[in-house]
């Protein structure tokens, strides 16, 4: 079932994120795709994430489609002007891509080409409006298209805004994104379900599917790093301690992620897992959250059946 069908039916969706690598070797990427096949509703393909130059999100979206996985094509406004954005959207449509996540994009200063010209010809809200225009058969200047697009546009929201003012204005911007055509939202990583619940209470009236972001922790330092450097992410001290004290950090990281999903399951319409290198652990995390059946080794299955 497509992401759109799942979300519009009110069912629970699981998306995971994969980041194209720097270079042309896609062996690892395709192995990750194989792991996710059949386990998730759709897979986000990041677009030059953190402003680091990599293989393009459109090409990888296409490779996923060929593999039988539904991509969520992430498109940022940082690197393309309005002509390139619209052209890439037409290309995506021709390649069969349905889901587009419209993002403004991190500043180039944060990445590996800090000298780059930041484009931002459009912002995420304007890009969503443009996607709507393309869907209705026109480019953003009203010129008719020969063959229109049929995108399911989504956007991001940061529910962890750490001041009341920024939370209020994140909600205001979210509303604006909806008005511009966003049909689903994916959030920044959540580590405090209670705070997320407060956000959801306020966003409830929007009646739009929201997929809560999950980042599995690899160790305590990663958590501390995110607290310091990633806007809107806050890992509570108790969780950092749990990671620091853990004997098997991998197992603990997976368990924490599963537990977070269990507590977010009833207050969101899906989860969006950003594994950052731990793509292979996604099935384990989902199994721990009770979202998919635990995979048994073939031998065990035979025994069970015998």
């Amino acid at each position: 079932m497509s992401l759109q069908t799942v979300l519009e039916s009110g069912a629970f969706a699981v998306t995971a994120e994969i980041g194209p690598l720097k270079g042309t070797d896609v062996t690892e990427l395709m192995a990750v795709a194989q792991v996710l096949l059949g386990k998730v509703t759709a897979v986000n393909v990041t677009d030059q994430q953190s402003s680091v130059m990599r293989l393009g999100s459109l090409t990888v979206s296409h490779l996923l489609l060929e593999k039988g996985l539904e991509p969520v094509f992430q498109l940022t406004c940082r690197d393309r002007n309005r002509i390139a954005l619209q052209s890439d959207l037409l290309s995506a449509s021709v390649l069969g891509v349905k889901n587009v996540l419209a993002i403004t994009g991190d500043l180039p200063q944060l990445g590996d080409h800090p000298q780059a010209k930041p484009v931002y010809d459009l912002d995420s809200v304007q890009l969503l409006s443009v996607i709507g225009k393309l869907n209705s058969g026109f480019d953003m200047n009203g010129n008719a298209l020969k063959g229109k697009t049929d995108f399911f546009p989504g956007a991001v929201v940061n529910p962890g805004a750490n001041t009341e003012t920024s939370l209020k204005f994140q909600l205001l911007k979210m509303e604006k994104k909806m008005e511009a055509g966003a049909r689903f939202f994916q959030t920044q990583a959540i580590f405090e379900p209670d705070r997320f619940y407060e956000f959801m209470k306020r966003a409830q009236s929007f009646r739009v599917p929201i997929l809560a972001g999950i980042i599995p922790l690899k160790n305590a330092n990663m958590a501390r790093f995110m607290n310091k450097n990633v806007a809107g992410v806050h890992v509570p001290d108790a969780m950092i301690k749990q990671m620091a004290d853990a004997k098997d950090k991998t197992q603990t990281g997976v368990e924490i992620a599963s537990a977070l999903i269990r507590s977010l399951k009833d207050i969101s319409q899906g989860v969006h897992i950003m594994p950052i290198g731990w793509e292979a652990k996604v099935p384990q995390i989902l199994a721990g959250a009770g979202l998919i059946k635990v995979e048994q080794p073939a031998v065990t299955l035979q025994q069970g059946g015998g």
Partner: protein
Amino acid sequence: MILSELKPTDEILGFLKNDRNVFILSCNGCAQSSGTGGPQQMAVMKAKLWENGKTVTGTMAVDFLCEKALVNSRLRGRRDQISISDSILVMTCGIGVQAVAASVPLTCHPACNTLNLGGTRGEWPGSERCDECGECVLDYTGGICPRTACTKGLMNGQCGGSSNGKCEINPGIECGWERIDKRMESLNQLDKLKSLLSPRDYAKSRPAPKIVNTPIFAVDTFAPKEVSVK
């Protein structure tokens, strides 16, 4: 007002690698207030060139090097010095260097980098910035310009990078959109923030052809083409 800074000496000496005799020209206008032109800076530069084995054939500070008619008339009196020079080192902004290059058939080396003003008017002490976009939106944003106050120049609200009211690029920078949002809240005009602001029309921020092609100072039109050096 144009702001400039002196290039590193090594870079300048690199430019002058194949030149033995150098004439120094500097500007008493913006470059002097930037500390990169005018008689004092020129004297320092002259000493540096001598130290590095160059012969300074002459020096001259002109009131405004961007004014070609003035450049022409002033250089006329120094024809002898210029004619024995291999090149001219010009201590001023990019406009001045181009104006001198258009007036003298010699290599003109820039001694300065012209700095981006980021919407300021040179060394004006205020913190307000105008990007001259040609489609002012200050009415929607409470008199705070989103194009210049937001690091990304976003038009429809703060991005996810805002943290504790600061920009993610530098905690020393206030999030421009948080400032706008707060201001609109205090003005009780939050509704205005719901307007979807359209993409910028960059055609409006190109200078009009009459500004580009018409000399502002009519005297420029009558200036002789070049100062002869032969």
